[in-house]
């Protein structure tokens, strides 16, 4: 059951999540701001609308499984988990600190509820999603597997091994999403290692390819619904996003991939976030 269908409500959650991402990363002093802000609308839609889950029962058997392959966007993942009810948002401030359940990249063994997979080494999550989707199909489970990837991550060869196997096994319970922001640590994807034509690549690997504006809540939800309804095989959503979305002064600047705001920048960044609304 969606927590809310109200777009205005979803936008409010996205703002709260972004503010937390900025504050927590500044407090941590390190981490990945760009992608975390860029994925805030998508995570809001997933955790408040798309996913069939029960935050008070993280091990509920019928829950949809979210596999976060790009563990470095942990700040937005944790904020979505906290605000949707998995744990108290007050704990978010412990991000990356010694003894925290909020590891720099998600680590299940530290006990944070809502983490399906400890991950962070790029290129592995799609394989895990494939195995999990196969296990679900074997047992005729009704849940779906949703995996989240970066566009730079698609440079990893293992992604394409996994993509091949997802269509070979006709995984119509698997929906992957690519955070298509066109940048990575060293710069533009097209300068570092061109990944286009992505639509052709995935289609030739047997996938249904959908795309959406990754900051438009209604479009994100409608696209996910379409993906879930597609029963012929795996679906990938190319979600066009802007790295650093919401903080105008840093948007699309790849230097913010792996950087945290300085404490003195927090107020200005949050002001920018609020102006956007």
């Amino acid at each position, binding site marked *: 059951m969606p927590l809310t269908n109200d777009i205005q409500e979803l936008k409010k959650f996205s703002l709260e999540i972004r503010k937390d991402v900025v504050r927590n990363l500044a407090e941590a002093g390190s981490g990945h701001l760009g992608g975390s802000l860029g994925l805030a609308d998508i995570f809001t839609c997933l955790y408040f609308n798309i996913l069939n889950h029960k935050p008070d029962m993280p091990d509920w058997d019928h829950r949809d499984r979210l596999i976060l392959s790009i563990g470095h966007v942990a700040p937005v993942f944790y904020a979505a988990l906290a605000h949707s009810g998995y744990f108290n948002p007050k704990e978010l401030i412990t991000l990356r600190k010694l003894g925290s359940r909020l590891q720099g990249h998600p680590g299940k063994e530290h006990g944070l509820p809502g983490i399906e997979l400890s991950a962070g080494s790029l290129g*592995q999550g799609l394989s895990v999603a494939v195995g999990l989707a196969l296990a679900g199909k*074997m047992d005729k489970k009704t849940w779906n597997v949703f995996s989240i990837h970066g566009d730079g991550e698609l440079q990893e060869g293992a992604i394409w091994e996994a993509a091949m196997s997802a269509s*070979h096994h006709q995984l119509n319970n698997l929906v992957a999403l690519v955070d298509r922001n066109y940048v990575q640590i060293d710069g533009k994807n097209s300068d570092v290692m061109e990944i286009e034509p992505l639509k052709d690549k995935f289609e030739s690997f047997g996938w249904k390819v959908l795309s959406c504006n990754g900051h438009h809540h209604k479009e994100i939800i409608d696209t996910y619904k379409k993906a879930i309804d597609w029963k012929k095989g795996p679906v990938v959503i190319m979600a066009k996003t802007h790295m650093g979305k919401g903080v105008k002064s840093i948007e699309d600047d790849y230097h913010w991939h792996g950087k945290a705001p300085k404490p003195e920048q927090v107020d200005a960044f949050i002001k920018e976030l609020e102006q956007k609304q």
Partner: protein
Amino acid sequence: MFTLKQLKPTRLGFGEGLKSLGEKYPNVVALGADITSSVSVNFFKEAFPNRFFSFGIAEQNIMGAAAGFALGDKIPFATTYGVFSALRATDQVRISICYNNLPVKIGGAHAGISVGPDGATHQALEDIAIMRVLPNMTVFSPCDATQTKLATIASVEQVNGPAYIRFGREAVPDFTTEDLPFEVGKGQLLKEGKDITIIATGHLVWEALQAAYQLEKQNIDVRVINIHTIKPIDEDIIIKAAKETGLIVTAEEHQIYGGLGSAVAEVLVKENPVKVKMIGMNDQFGESGKPEELMQKYGLSSGHIAEKVIEMNKQKRNNERPD
């Protein structure tokens, strides 16, 4: 005294163990890497076609997918040649499997130079070193086909997390029986002895026993210990042997760096330092040849083990002799 029952490839023991697990546990599944007959997964595949999943020649994906199956409450067996499961897909094994502490069971086939004519590319000689350094991983290196079957079953019944099972291609002496209990992490004292101890793993355990029996005629009383679980290792049996016999020879079909010899030495330097002579591959790659030719050339036969024991025993007696 152990006697030869038959010659049998240890990979068949793996295949039989996996099939019997399939009969007992409906949640056991197997993932294939194109070489299913070669690694004996075909027994399972034929018996349980709906629980076998083909992944082609894509070892990284197999290890990641196996982690996914485990998240979906299955007990997956991901099996390919040891060189690939331990080395091609190490990062997937480290993060998706070990860091998540998932019950993925990994088969490492074609261990050691006894693979023979295929040559260096396909002879797994570093897999023990890689697998035993990974947190949460249990590492098995059973001594014959019968024990490989027991180890495979134990990997599910006695281990909650990930496990690696190492086995070979060629027919080797099958000499243990299913009555010899397989307990994870417990070394097996196969022959008592007071003068010197050979600690061996894999099919070199048979070679060690032959060396020991041969040396009885020369009045050298050799103890033989089988370490079928490299990790967690049985510290007690190793320390006891060091205390009681003074000298240790290790024997394995693996690089001497990082393998059984290293694991034994790690135990001894902490508790009871004694001289350890390591028999294995001396920081080198293998080559093509018949398995028995390679075992001779690289010094891994019972004769070579016996020579090392005699040499060490001489030193020991010289040291003990009063001036």
